[in-house]
């Protein structure tokens, strides 16, 4: 951290002006009028000004999906607090806000759909009237569930996860100017998927893609939020064309929290059928995802819920399954894919339910898991929803985690009791993370983005350095370190002579971008493929320089080695660029610059996984939780850079702790967000995140280059379940079970008091 990063807000262009938006103060209302002071009419723009601008449409090909249309500036109706209504432009943001304060909205308030569990009620207000209901999509998977109904153990729970905000340190922001020389709209935006944003802008603005250049500079955290095309980006694209001078909008924290960056809100009614020893016979679930008002581009409003159905079984093998899901529309911001996407929610539901099964069966949580985890001898394994597990030893990960955390010691300490009266709890959770899933998976979703081959460019420079060009973006995951490692592995060029060029549609091959924990598998594979092609080109030149036949030379540690000598890659580069007279006749005209594409042998995704084990001390009287120990045993296939992987896990863990214990974006019955600053929306800080102990396993993927697997999101998936299970383990003797995230002191104390009063009532009755 040297303060030398260059983020969108650091971009200064001559003549640039700032934009502030007038946003809807109401969750659901008809717009009767917008009044702009006449003297400000050339500074304020509303929907009717945006000629030719199309609404954002993120459809899904799944049967029954109802698309929404999100006008960049609201037209007839507003459907969430914070929806854009007018755009105000001024030399500074403060002045733009002064103007915004003078714009008056005449709104006719409509009842807000604020609770996803009631969104399907007959009398519910309609977010999109033309639909007739509030359901984006309903799905049903049923695999022989009836066969489980006679199981001796049946455990049902209602489990839910709060709506959250993603809260990267840097919010969104966009600077747009028209480059008159290239006749190109240059959009500098904090995003992780620049090529996708370009396609979206092109569709909404009606401008050909080649007339748009999207630049993403340093990005201060993405986590999924920065994969989304924002209405603000569309508005500023139009505005830059209209005004002729550069325009800028920098999201502030309040906009981020109240209007834009929501995620995670799931509700589960889950029943697990099991044998008396904890062997799962079947899982039956109804899940609702609060998708908010609009389908976000490009992932759509159904990604979460439809994924819930396919990934709820997690790393477990059982014979019967039913899952019905609803993606419902509400008067809240669109729910966006956040690190872990649906997995954090399903892991929470499944792992809490499994602990309930363990309690009911009278066995330990680890016994229930060991009974049901996919076994290594089953690999590769197709699970009940046809997810294809490529490799791994899940029971081993759990066993190692138990050993590392000394589960026997923890149980002994728990039984002995703490001198300060706090209660010790032990919690586990295990997940698997399908990552780098490709065409075969995404073509089925039918959303605006389907990943195909991933490409990378590799170019030797005349002095023997290497430039790598990738269309995805590094937004904090250290691709600047790891991709040069991959290139070094093939070419032997020292990593300090390898530059990564990324974050600019004008300079990089097309890519769907950084999402789905796919970069190391896909972009890493593409870099390797491009470098291997470079090796072939270099060998042809090198053999000539060595006066040897190509079949007699080999490539080793950055040199072409022949029978009678060797020549360095840098010399080959010098010859190609500076001394072409020394090249063989018929040398490949493509020279030492290659763009190559890559797909794994099978594109159904890699399956990384981890077992998390945690020990907490819970103060039942004030509800506080201290994390005493945290162990993670993960398997991400072959690790390119274990330190970077640890960093990913640590960051994910911090976010997982936020989900588990702190982060919540509550809404009232009018659909008003109740946490509008970081004083109300609590993020974990240094003091709340323990130093975990991480154990690595490396089971190569049989399908990917080098056997790598995607690991970017996993750290954020398991912590909420592990922590809630630990709290429940601590409080079970009091008759308390926490089934809602975040597990807050208020919720704990309320549950403890309720359990006490029901115990008293039972005593009175007896």
């Amino acid at each position, binding site marked *: 951290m040297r303060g030398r990063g260059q983020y969108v807000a650091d971009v200064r262009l001559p003549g640039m002006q700032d934009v502030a938006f007038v946003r809807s103060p109401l969750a659901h209302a008809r717009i009767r009028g917008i009044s702009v002071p006449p003297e400000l009419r050339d500074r304020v723009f509303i929907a009717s000004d945006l000629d030719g601008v199309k609404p954002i449409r993120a459809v899904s090909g799944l049967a029954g999906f109802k698309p929404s249309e999100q006008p960049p500036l609201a037209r007839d109706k507003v459907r969430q607090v914070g929806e854009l209504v007018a755009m105000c432009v001024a030399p*500074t*943001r*403060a002045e733009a*806000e*002064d103007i915004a*304060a003078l714009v008056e909205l005449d709104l006719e308030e409509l009842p807000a759909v604020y609770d996803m569990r009631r969104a399907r009620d007959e009398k519910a207000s309609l977010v999109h009237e033309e639909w007739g209901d509030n359901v984006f999509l309903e799905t049903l998977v049923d695999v022989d569930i009836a066969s489980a109904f006679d199981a001796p153990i049946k455990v049902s729970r209602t489990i839910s996860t709060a709506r959250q905000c993603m809260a990267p340190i840097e919010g969104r922001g966009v600077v747009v100017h028209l480059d008159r020389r290239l006749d190109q709209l240059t959009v500098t935006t904090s995003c992780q998927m620049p090529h996708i944003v370009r396609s979206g802008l092109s569709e909404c603005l009606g401008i050909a893609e080649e007339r748009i250049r999207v630049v993403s500079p340093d990005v201060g955290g993405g986590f999924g939020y920065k994969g989304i095309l924002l209405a603000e980006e569309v508005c500023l694209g139009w505005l830059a064309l209209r005004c002729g001078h550069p325009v800028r909008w920098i999201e*502030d924290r*309040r906009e981020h929290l109240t209007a834009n960056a929501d995620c995670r809100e799931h509700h589960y009614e889950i029943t697990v059928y099991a044998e008396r020893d904890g062997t799962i016979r079947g899982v039956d679930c109804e899940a609702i995802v609060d998708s908010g008002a609009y389908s976000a581009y490009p992932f759509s409003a159904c990604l979460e819920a439809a994924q819930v159905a396919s990934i709820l079984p997690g790393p477990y093998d059982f014979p019967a399954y039913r899952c019905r899901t609803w993606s419902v529309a509400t008067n809240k911001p669109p729910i966006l894919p956040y690190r872990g996407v649906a997995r954090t929610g399903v892991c929470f539901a499944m792992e809490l339910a499994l602990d309930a099964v363990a309690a009911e069966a009278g066995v330990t949580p680890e016994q229930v898991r060991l009974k049901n985890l996919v076994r290594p001898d089953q690999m590769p394994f197709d699970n009940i929803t046809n997810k294809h597990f490529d490799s791994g030893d899940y029971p081993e990960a759990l066993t190692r985690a138990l050993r590392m955390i000394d589960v026997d010691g923890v149980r002994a300490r728990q039984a002995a009791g703490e001198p300060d009266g706090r209660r010790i709890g032990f919690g586990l959770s295990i997940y698997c993370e399908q990552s780098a899933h490709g065409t075969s998976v995404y073509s089925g979703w039918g959303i605006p983005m389907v990943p195909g081959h991933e490409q990378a460019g590799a170019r030797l420079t005349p002095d023997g350095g290497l430039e790598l060009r990738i269309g995805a973006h590094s937004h904090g995951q250290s691709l600047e370190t790891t991709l040069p490692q991959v290139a070094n592995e093939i070419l032997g060029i020292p990593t300090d002579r390898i530059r990564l060029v990324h974050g600019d549609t004008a300079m990089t091959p097309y890519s769907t971008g950084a999402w789905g924990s796919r970069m190391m598998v896909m972009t890493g594979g593409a870099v390797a493929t491009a470098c291997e092609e470079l090796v072939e080109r270099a060998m042809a030149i090198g053999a000539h320089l060595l006066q040897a036949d190509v079949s007699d030379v080999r490539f080793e540690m950055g040199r072409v080695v022949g029978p009678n000598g060797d020549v360095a890659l840098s010399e080959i580069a010098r010859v190609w660029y500076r001394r072409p007279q020394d090249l063989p006749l018929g040398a490949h005209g493509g020279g030492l610059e290659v763009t190559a594409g890559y797909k794994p042998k099978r594109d159904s995704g890699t399956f990384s996984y981890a077992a998390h084990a945690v020990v907490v001390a819970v103060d039942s*009287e*004030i*509800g*506080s939780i201290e994390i005493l120990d945290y162990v993670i045993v993960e398997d991400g296939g072959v690790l390119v850079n274990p330190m970077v992987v640890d960093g990913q896990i640590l960051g994910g863990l911090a976010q997982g702790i936020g989900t588990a*214990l*702190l982060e919540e974006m509550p809404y009232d019955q009018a659909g008003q967000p109740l946490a509008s*600053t970081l*004083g109300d929306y*609590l993020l*974990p*800080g*240094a*003091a*709340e995140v323990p130093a975990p102990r991480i154990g690595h396993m490396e089971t190569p993927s049989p399908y990917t280059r080098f056997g790598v697997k995607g690991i970017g999101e996993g750290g954020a998936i398991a912590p909420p379940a592990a922590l809630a299970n630990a709290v429940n383990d601590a409080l079970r003797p009091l008759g308390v079970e926490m089934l809602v995230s975040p597990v*807050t*002191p*208020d919720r704990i*104390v*309320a549950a403890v*008091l309720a359990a006490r009063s029901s115990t008293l009532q039972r005593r009175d009755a007896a």
Partner: protein
Amino acid sequence: MKAARFDLVRPRDLAEALDLLAAPAGVVKVMAGGQSLGPMLNLRLVEPDLIVDISAVPDLRRFEREGGTIVIGAGCTHADLEDGRAPDVGRDMLARVASGIAYRAVRNRGTVGGSLAHADPAADWPTALLALGAEIELASKVGRRRLPLGEFLTGALSTALAPGELIVAVRVAAASASAGFGYVKHARKVGEFAHALGAAVIDPEAGAGHAVVGALDRAPIVFEDAGVLFGGRVGPDARSFDRTVADAALKAAGVENEASRHVHVEILRRALVQAFERAPAPARAAA
């Protein structure tokens, strides 16, 4: 969001500051460390015409001892107290409170006087200084006056500050040698505003003490005689703490939620236990 336009003046002495406050043209806000006012300006919750920045007034930065009284200038920062640049009331009483306020960056700028003037019920100083029996010294062009802190704090975010008036100092009597100070803050994370605050000064030798419950939707509840929490008189330890008395006081103060009351009472109890434990050892040995 960005603050609306305002004028800023930075007086160099107290007289100049009081002059500026005496004849305001429009809405005036005083800024010391700006740790609460800054965000409020940016959120446009306040849109003053003029901000009087008192951070350069030397009179407000003094701390001194006047006999048995510690006088802390209103512009003294939390970090001044945390680091021991200012004299403490007794051992580390003020330093302990100061070190738990928000984050170091906030403590470097935020001031005691600013915190009291803002009177956020969830802030530390109102509760802690009430327990320590502080007095507030106020100045205006008209003159000076002193108020017990309990009279100064009139409610959530509301005080007895008159127009044109400025807090110049907090006066706290040094604690008796046999007293212990207990201070317990309940928050969900380090640096957060408190959800419950308990403060107590207990002198087991004298069988006396007082206790405060803070972080309510109103000014803190003060038990001038902590004996009421122990069935009549302050005993040798906290074992006779009567939860029902504290609970009833919270109920009377309008805290409807049972779980909230439970936590407030528990935090108060822990502050009392701590006060007993921190009372100097000879007193406890005698008891």
